């Protein structure tokens, strides 16, 4: 089965990103396909390259990057939400003349159409939020 995952909240503030991650892992272990993980609202903050959580705690953004790398998962940050919240990739940096980018490996920034597409193409769309 193909899953679409929607994450509406940022790392640490809410359990949403953790629950989404654990669900995604369990689905992969059962041989399912993750069509896309789409990050919206404050969820775009999961894509930061600059987080330094305490050493004895889980590293939420890195964990997503690693899972994406291992299983070739499409992690998408919504461009509109990302722009509002200052999540910037190299293209956005040039486009909006910012002095830095901050997006983590294996995340990409794209439009809300990617969420709709996930709703259409996936067999199930699960939302994790507040």
């Amino acid at each position: 089965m193909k899953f679409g995952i929607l994450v509406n909240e940022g790392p640490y503030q809410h359990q949403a990103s953790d629950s989404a991650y654990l669900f995604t892992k369990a689905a992969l272990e059962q041989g399912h396909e993750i069509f896309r993980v789409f990050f919206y609202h404050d969820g775009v903050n999961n894509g930061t390259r600059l987080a330094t959580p305490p050493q004895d705690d889980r590293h939420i953004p890195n964990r997503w990057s690693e899972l994406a790398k291992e299983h070739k998962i499409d992690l998408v940050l919504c461009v509109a939400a990302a722009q509002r919240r200052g999540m910037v990739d190299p293209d956005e940096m040039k486009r909006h003349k910012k002095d830095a980018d901050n997006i983590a490996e294996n995340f990409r920034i794209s439009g809300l159409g990617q969420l709709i597409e996930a709703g259409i193409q996936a067999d199930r769309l699960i939302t994790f939020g507040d």
Partner: protein
Amino acid sequence: MEEELASGVVKKFLYINRRAPHGTIYAHEALEVVLIGAAFEQDVTLAFLDDGVFQLKKNQDTADINTKNFSKTYGALEMYDVEKLYVEKESMEQRGLTKDDLSVDVKIITSKDMQKLIEENEVILNF
């Protein structure tokens, strides 16, 4: 473009709105999904329940809090072929609202009918 990715599949999308406007961004950003989603020509329904009914209240004026007044967008939805707007009667009554308080034409339905509406849709988005 993005629309071509849809490959002709039409699913019944239901957007459930349960939060008041302005105190949080959910109402505003949910509407942005609806507008972008309109290009994909799916079968779209919007449901307003609990505090979500406040999103449709008339005369919202955000000038003094200096935030974007996106409430006018609800009136423009029909231009995007998003015409199925349902509001839960019980949520309205609990909040002392009547049809006259609302800024757009909606169907006010009971919990029982809202229950059926939820069952009938395939992809349900919550914000």
